[in-house]
């Protein structure tokens, strides 16, 4: 299974642990991710609300670059996934915008006809690889590990079609395929505060606190997510959350690809586990070592 890989900026910088785990598990799962040459910013959700047309144009350049390969574009970042899909949809639905974007691309010697499908890596892991295959490749079953599946907002809303916007299930099934238990986590699509962390920090920290409390009271040993921004807010800011809300949260926040990597028996240094801000706790380590 060969795809055009669009990494986005996060996984190349703050979230490079995500990238490392993707690089580690892809060959084992039979995923060939060929990075798009000369890719640029996805258009970014924040920029989209300031200069919409410009943002669409930047975004469309990536799609135009990808089109000649006639392969699905896969991205690990929920924001990139949302923006690229939005560009694609608007490009098809609004002739006026299509015309303008066409002109912008032409100025750069490019063209786009709207025939690229943009997918999230979770979609690929769940629908193309599938829980059965992953389960068959597991070397260390994660029996006893209780995981809170946290999807965040951008992957399921607005309805992108591959999972339910209110109660997504794909990551739950993947977690179960590794032998772990996916706990009942009603907050799985609630807001993590997103980029408010930069502008309204207290508010964002309180939102994170609700998510962390929810996971802990559901008896989860760790949270698993698939979005670089969600992961950073919950992981890196956990100590700040504790200070503001006077809590003692201590719950590791992993990427789903890291969890899969552990179950596939890969060494933790290949999966970027050492780069987590909240280190793996004792019970998690015990289960992982026992596994």
């Amino acid at each position, binding site marked *: 299974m060969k795809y055009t890989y669009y990494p986005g900026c996060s996984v190349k910088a703050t979230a490079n642990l995500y990238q490392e785990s993707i690089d580690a598990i892809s060959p084992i799962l039979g995923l060939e991710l060929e990075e798009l040459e000369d890719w640029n910013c996805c258009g970014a959700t924040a920029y989209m609300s300031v200069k919409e047309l410009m943002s669409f144009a930047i975004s469309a350049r990536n799609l135009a670059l990808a089109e000649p390969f006639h392969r699905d574009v896969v991205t690990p970042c929920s924001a990139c996934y949302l923006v690229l899909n939005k560009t694609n949809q608007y490009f098809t639905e609004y002739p006026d915008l299509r015309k303008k974007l066409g002109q912008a691309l032409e100025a750069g010697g490019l063209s786009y006809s709207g025939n690229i499908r943009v997918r999230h890596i979770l979609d690929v892991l769940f629908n193309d690889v599938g829980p059965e295959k992953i389960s068959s490749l597991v070397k260390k079953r994660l029996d006893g590990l209780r995981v809170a599946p946290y999807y965040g907002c951008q992957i399921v809303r607005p309805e992108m079609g591959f999972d*339910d916007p*209110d*109660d997504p299930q794909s990551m739950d099934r993947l977690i179960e395929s590794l032998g772990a238990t996916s706990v*009942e986590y*009603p*907050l799985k699509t609630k807001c993590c505060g997103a980029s408010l962390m930069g502008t309204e920090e207290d508010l964002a920290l309180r939102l994170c606190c609700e998510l962390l*409390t*929810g996971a802990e*009271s*559901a008896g989860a040993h760790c949270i698993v997510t698939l979005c670089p921004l969600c992961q950073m807010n919950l992981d890196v800011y956990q100590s700040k959350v504790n200070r503001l809300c006077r809590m003692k949260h201590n719950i590791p926040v992993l990427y789903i690809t890291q969890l899969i990597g552990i179950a596939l028996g890969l060494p933790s240094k290949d999966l970027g586990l050492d780069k987590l801000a909240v280190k793996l706790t004792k019970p998690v380590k015990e289960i992982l070592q026992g596994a």
Partner: protein
Amino acid sequence: MPERVGVYICHCGSNIAGKIDIEKLAGFAEKLDNVALVRDYKFMCSDPGQNLIQSDLEAGLIDRVVVASCSPLMHENTFRKVCERSGVNPYLFTMTNIREQCSWVHIDEASSTEKAMDLLAASVRRAVYLEPLEKREVAINPRTLVIGGGIAGIQAALDLAEAGKEVVLVEREPSIGGHMAKFDKTFPTLDCAACILTPRMVQIGQHANIHLMSYAEVEEINGYVGNFNIKVRQKARYVDADLCNGCGMCWEKCPGTRVPRKGNVHEKLSLGPTSSIYMPFMQAIPAIPVIDRESCLYFQKGKCRICEQVCERNAINYDMEDSFEEFEVGNIIIATGFQPFDPSVIKRYGYGTLPNVLTSVEFEIMNCASGSTGGKILKADGTEPKSIGIVHCVGSRDKHYHEYCSRVCCMYALKFAHLIKEKTDAEVYNFYIDLRCFGKGYEEFYDRLLGEDVRFIRGKVGEISRWVAEEDEKDQLIVRVEDTLVGAVRRIPLDMVVLCTALEKQDGLDRVAKMCSVSVGKDGFIIEKHPKLGPVSTATDGVFIVGVAQSPKDIPDTVAQASAASSAVLSMITREKIEIEAATAEIIEEKCSGCRICNNLCPYLAINFDEEKKVSIINEALCKGCGTCVAACPSNAITAKHFNDKQIFAEIEGLLSAR
């Protein structure tokens, strides 16, 4: 002498005159060929308006009539009758629609007037080519078919039967009674549903004029007003209705389980016996059980036959097959009721995944004294809830599901609140958008509930989840709602939540509608003839609608509508004869080449081939005048009366004749 057309322009108060320059239109009409006179009047449909036409016709000033006013669907018949009264063939009249399709839909007066001129010119041109047609009359069969045996069908059937007319009542379920039979109390009077419904059900079962076919479905409807041919499928009960005396031995001994006997209180909710051979509830009419094939051990595994052994009357018959009955009726009443909206599609509310989230119908069953909980309000684990939330407008007043208001939920939610307060010590929360307590005694009931310590929170519930934060919330449901009166998002832990689900069109209503040639609206309910003036009639003569088949309504309104429909049917029956469409198709034998192309086109099998003359002939009694054969005839041998080629060509010419 050339045709003399009288043109009558209606102002319709300001409805037409406000947007169309009547003087200009009249001046234009006067110059048209064949127009003998032009008059305009405030309301042409009023008595003085009609008299204008009548006196002109009687004085012999004109011989054709054009009325430019509203839609022909509204008043064509009114003016046809004026012609008839004046001794002129009603088919020498035509109507110009300058209201619905002109003054009401165009903003600009100049273009409205221009369009009205074109439409009027077309009608005048058409009027010249109109031909007198002979009235056709058919006898009306005095028997009536009522589809659906809920409170709507029961009321309509009893009204007709009491008036001495025969009724065939067809009910899909094993018993009549419908949803009302599942209720414990009815709002706002809190009288016992069974006490008012059961006597009527018994009356239906015993009435000499009512032929009750339960566990049966209408398969085919053919024919037309006064003479419908009906085919009904009697589904196999596997119990001989003539032999069975309803003793109940069979369901007491039956080892099969239609409703699970294990499981929690909510999974076991049921009104009647839970066995495979069962009655839907104990007061069922007819009081004859049915075998549920899906759970019957004999049908599934080939072994058991216990019911056969214990039946002293030998009424069990496993070899029974569906049978068909055909009969004729003169009129049809559709009273198919509703089905509740399935809230599991709203994932945020957790119905089907979270325990203790119930639908209103399930809650009704739980409250019913003869149900599996004996009328007790219980959580899934069998304990009494300490707090219950009632969520209004689930699936209704919601653009994602149904835009309409279901009209009954506010009131039954109040009834629920009262019952909970009466039976338990639980706190009750009503989550509402608006409280619509519009009927007789409804507002007073709401006022009473305010004094019963029921909490009302104005806001649409965002989600129901298990987002537990405290230890004592462990087994509770967390409702998150924006309290719009306080202006804050609230988080309310509750033991149980009842979802007031929308009333939806009954499953299969579209099939019934199609068989009866009536249309359904975008909400799936049948469209009435006129929203104000014809609420029980439909576009098809002889087909009437009652209850939720038309739109959501409560029991008082349904019963009123049922009596209205039965009186409309009685009025038809008493007439004995009815005029039917005279505008049929006709084959001109001399032109027919005998190619038979038309023979297979007719959906009513009205066209046959005369082997002797080698031409096709149309049976006018069967023809409904659609004109499909006319357009298909390669020799132009078929004419559609009142819509013939000449008339339509003339209309086209009129429309486009440059002013």
